[in-house]
């Protein structure tokens, strides 16, 4: 499933940041417990295959958001890099991905031409967000460039705001020169 840039920005996390190794371990243990209960059919939340698929999809989304947030925090210098945190996030993400793929494949095998699980698309979309983190795992480091690590308010904020206000837009009738961009631009203009 294709996730546009706009969608990915809108999916930016709103969850509480998890920064300490012990908190990461607590978080992942809690997710695993939820999924164990789900797999065992405990409670009402996973009373059907669709409900299980949705539960797994939510867990994958939450994991993706948390790993990305941790990465951005290290990148911006808000927290130091810790190998133990890196290992914990990677291990937990791989475990969740494998569990989710297993459920996905089982559900896909149960589908028949006239019956689709609505939760299957949600899980596919969630895996589409999680898997790219695992494929060629990148360990975060403090930013080399200044924008992320020096993003603080400066004394000349009013001057900057005035200059921003004075920036002129692209001229009326402007369109991109690139063929792909032009096509996207025209589609966006219609919506």
């Amino acid at each position, binding site marked *: 499933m294709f996730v546009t840039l706009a969608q990915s920005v809108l999916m930016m996390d709103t969850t509480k940041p998890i920064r300490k190794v012990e908190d990461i371990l607590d978080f992942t243990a809690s997710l695993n417990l939820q999924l164990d209960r789900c797999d065992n059919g405990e409670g009402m939340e996973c009373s059907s295959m669709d409900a299980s698929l949705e539960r797994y999809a939510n867990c994958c989304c939450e994991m993706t958001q948390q790993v990305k947030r941790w990465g951005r925090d290290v990148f911006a210098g808000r927290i130091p890099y810790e190998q133990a945190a890196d290992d914990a996030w990677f291990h937990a993400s791989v475990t969740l991905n494998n569990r989710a793929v297993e459920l996905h494949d089982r559900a896909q095998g149960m589908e028949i031409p006239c019956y689709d699980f609505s939760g299957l698309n949600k899980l596919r979309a969630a895996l589409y967000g999680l898997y790219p983190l695992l494929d060629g795992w990148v360990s975060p480091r403090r930013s080399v460039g200044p924008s*992320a690590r020096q993003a603080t308010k400066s004394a000349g904020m009013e001057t900057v*705001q005035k200059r921003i206000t004075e920036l002129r837009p692209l001229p009326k009738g402007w369109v991109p020169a690139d063929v792909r961009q032009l096509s996207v631009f025209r589609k966006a203009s219609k919506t």
Partner: protein
Amino acid sequence: MPPAISLIASRVDLGGDDFKLIVNWPYNDSFVARVLKSDIPQRVKFGNGRIWLFKDPMGQPVGFGTFDVCEDYGHHTHGKPHPYIPLLAVNPTIKSLGYGTSIVEYLVAEAALTVKELRSCSDVLFLDVYTNNTRAIALYTRTGFQQLEGPINDPDEGAQYIIMGRRVSVANE
């Protein structure tokens, strides 16, 4: 100013040959290689970063450009995410024929598309550049960017940089 040269852009994957190609170009400024190897993969993985390789009509790779939507300068956009150019470079092994201008214009257009699609995004495209990089500052000024802030001290690099911006919404839209 001569018109920008038409280039062919293709998306670059971190694990692909094109990324290896641009990482291994012999940049005059080691900062470019460090940002490309360390920052850009993180912007792709943890943010909304994207990379393009640009080729001339003969198929020769002439440069690359990167783009992100982030909140690095959110303190200037009332907390809104904004388009940002982390890095671009012309292939240092060839004679540049104005490729930098074409790459910047492509990235400006990408920012314009993003702003059009994502209404919660600020319509100011930001970048930062060290003050000793006068060629880059001239390029950005030529392509419509204006200095917004600086010079700012960067103790990590032992240098000063300025923040530049350009509005990427289209007039009367």
